[in-house]
């Protein structure tokens, strides 16, 4: 069983259960050294990859078993962002607009029971329980870069399976050209819904070929454990070549449509946010440059910001999806 029990699945443990970050970090560093040393220079990268993949449990939440992915490009070798940073610094406007708000407030989110409505142009529309969804694909660990539109980035080991596994199972009709993702919107547990900054519920969308791309991940966990509530429990999308806001959290609906969905940010500020929102250092946000980024937890106060990579470094994998498109126009 992947999750201990349905009742304790996403509860936070007592503080004494928590392994100090320094403890697992030093173990991870040791493993990395051993791996690099025994495998030799030529294989150091592989050793590092395996060490990173297996030595990441922070001991905060129930474990979520997985195997390291074999997919090319889905296991970047960048240094992992400390769990503490990834779990305390992020945007989840349903809990407030400050990046420390989600970690402070998301404990109210009710993730049990949870189901996802699959609807629209699809042969098998259904309301699927989380327990069943967890079994719809083989859980893989994948290490992705995450680039926020605000100019910071992280490297996070996610646990989940390709969204394509789900899409193939529900069999979209030939007319389905886009997939829309709807996030939970419960005013009782999400204080951020009082803000008018966005239209709730939060809507996101992908073109069918983007949704079917094997890198597009339906994630149920991170760092070898179930998803923390503040990071979008119990399941979220991760689209590593797009700005972070494209990776919707706490999904309740997946809808197949023939029309391009109007996503929440596009509705709120159409000049600033587009449907595609691919990471692109050459297309600036109207109010700031996208050429560089700050890697959270790694780049010190005095470090120069690092160059942002085209498609967040996934150009080899996804570049062909946008062949011939004017990326300045379709931003």
């Amino acid at each position, binding site marked *: 069983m992947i999750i201990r029990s349905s009742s304790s699945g996403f509860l936070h443990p007592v503080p004494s259960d928590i392994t100090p970050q320094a403890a697992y970090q030093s173990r991870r560093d040791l493993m990395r050294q051993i791996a690099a040393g025994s495998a030799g220079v030529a294989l150091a990268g592989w050793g590092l990859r395996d060490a990173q993949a297996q030595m990441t449990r922070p001991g905060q939440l129930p474990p979520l078993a997985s195997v390291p992915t074999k997919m090319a490009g889905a296991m970047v070798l960048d240094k992992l962002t400390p769990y503490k940073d990834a779990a*305390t610094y992020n945007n989840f406007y349903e809990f407030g607009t400050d*990046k420390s708000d989600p970690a402070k407030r998301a404990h109210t989110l009710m993730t049990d029971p949870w189901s996802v409505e699959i609807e629209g142009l699809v042969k098998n529309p259904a309301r699927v329980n989380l327990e069943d969804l967890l079994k719809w694909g083989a859980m893989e660990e994948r290490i992705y870069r995450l680039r926020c539109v605000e100019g910071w980035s992280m490297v996070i080991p996610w646990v989940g399976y390709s969204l394509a596994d789900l899409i193939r199972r529900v069999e979209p009709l030939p007319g389905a050209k886009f997939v829309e993702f709807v996030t939970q919107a419960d005013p009782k547990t999400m204080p951020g819904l009082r*803000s008018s900054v966005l239209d709730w519920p939060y809507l996101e969308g992908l073109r069918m070929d983007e949704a079917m791309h094997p890198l597009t991940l339906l994630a149920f966990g991170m760092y070898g454990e179930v998803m923390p509530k503040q990071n979008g429990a119990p399941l979220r999308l991760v689209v590593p070549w797009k700005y972070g806001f494209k990776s919707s959290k706490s999904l309740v609906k997946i809808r197949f449509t023939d029309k391009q969905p109007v996503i929440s940010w596009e509705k709120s500020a159409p000049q600033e946010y587009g449907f595609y929102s691919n990471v692109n250092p050459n297309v*600036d946000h109207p109010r*700031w*440059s996208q050429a560089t980024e700050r890697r*959270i*937890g790694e780049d010190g106060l005095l470090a120069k910001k690092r160059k942002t990579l085209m498609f967040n470094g996934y150009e080899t994998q996804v570049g062909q999806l946008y062949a011939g498109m004017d990326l300045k126009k379709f931003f």
Partner: protein
Amino acid sequence: MRAALRHPAAWWALLVLGCMPWAWLLAQTLQDQLGPNPAEALIRATGDWTLRSLCVVLAVSPLRTLLGWPELLRFRRMLGLLVFGYASLHLLCYAWFDMGFDLADTLQDIVKRPFIWLGFSGFVILLVLAATSFNRAVRWLGGKRWQMLHWGVYAVAVLAVLHFWWMRAGKQDFEEVLVYAAILAALLGWRLLRSMWRS
């Protein structure tokens, strides 16, 4: 209370108090206690303390009049220089930690983010006020001209609030901005009403 304010140690006590946020931020920086994004934390904290110290210095005259405590006047210059100090730190943190002292990057950034212009204009005014804060500067300029120049602090208050408001406009998160705007509006409004009432 008024006797305490007249005590020579009161000036030093207030200076130490005014430097505490700075010392606290420095200690947090050295101990790596500023959270996942220390650069952002420092830029925001120094901006917050600029606004707070601005509220304090602009409260001196109203409190002096309303409470009838002329003693407060002897703290005003030091409090004004604290505003300049926090504004300088704010600018330094931006130029250093966000821009890495790269002039080309900074110029590009300022074009992209016009709210930085507002903050920078406010800083230039504060620089002029700080540079003319000595007794001898008052004599050189003459009392009347010196006073008119130092009304520039009202422009700083307006620029500071606009700078903050524009910065938060992206997230439409104006709660904190409104708190500062209300305090500064009350402090400036009191002066306006008083001068109208007098004339």
